[in-house]
């Protein structure tokens, strides 16, 4: 018994589905951002696992790019959330429904 690529891919799928559930269920904007972090990490686990089993280093490079993009996404997202909170005093995602027809 050993750990194969399928184990890592299934772990990534489970983490991705958990993050997706959090994104759909949560009402708090900060927790939606946290769920998106979980989804990005699930994809990183799958990429690095595939790269390891193929013997190719480029999976790690794509994972590194995803990590950097996640960091900048957090910076911009939290800036937007802080600006929103200053104006409307609410972290509820339903408060951003001004454009609903």
């Amino acid at each position: 018994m050993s750990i194969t690529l399928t184990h890592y891919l299934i772990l990534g799928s489970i983490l991705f589905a958990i993050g997706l559930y959090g994104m759909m269920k949560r009402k708090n904007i900060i927790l939606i951002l946290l769920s998106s972090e979980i989804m990005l990490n699930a994809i990183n686990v799958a990429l690095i696992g595939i790269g390891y089993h193929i013997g190719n280093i480029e999976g790690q490079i794509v994972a590194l790019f995803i990590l950097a993009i996640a960091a900048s996404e957090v910076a911009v997202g939290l800036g937007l959330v802080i600006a929103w909170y200053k104006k409307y005093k609410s972290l509820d995602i339903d408060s951003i429904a001004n454009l609903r027809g």
Partner: protein
Amino acid sequence: MESIFGFDIFSVGGFYIFAAISIGMSLIVVSSKNILHALSAMALGMVSISAFYFMLDAEFLGVVQLIVYGGAIVALYAFAMMLFDSREDIIESRRNLYVALLISAGIAVALAYTFIDADMGAYAKYISQNIDNLSQNDIPINDTSKKLGLILFTKYIVGFELIGLLLLVALVIGIGLITKSKLSPNPRSKK
């Protein structure tokens, strides 16, 4: 490699322990009522995910994951939460709970079934035999961190520079969004 009970105790045991920790912590993140608990659980979950990177011979990415997720991103969220009133519990509605559960469980089962059914290990072996990895074969180095650096700074140098530009843009946007503009010509912004 230490073999106890007929299997490799480090890779198998480590995988299941850290998988349990990361999945449990992710479940706490998406279900906790207290935002501080969710944030602490995410910190532990990210640290346990970095263990997979170490097990997959990606030491550099493991260290980067520890620094960026365990340090910077959690600190950024903690800093942002000081500006909000995090004492009150999060308002959650149960309205779309079952739809979200159904969709995410369906996607999890579909992905897992695909990966089990398709025998991804055989695909990986096939690809690794037929892949055109010229840029890797002329590097006679076994150290994956050195290999990563050599490929990152030759073949993917444009992407690397663009990531630097993206981080700079994110920095400027982050500063610009949370500072008050004193020179704003718009009088409505002074509320």
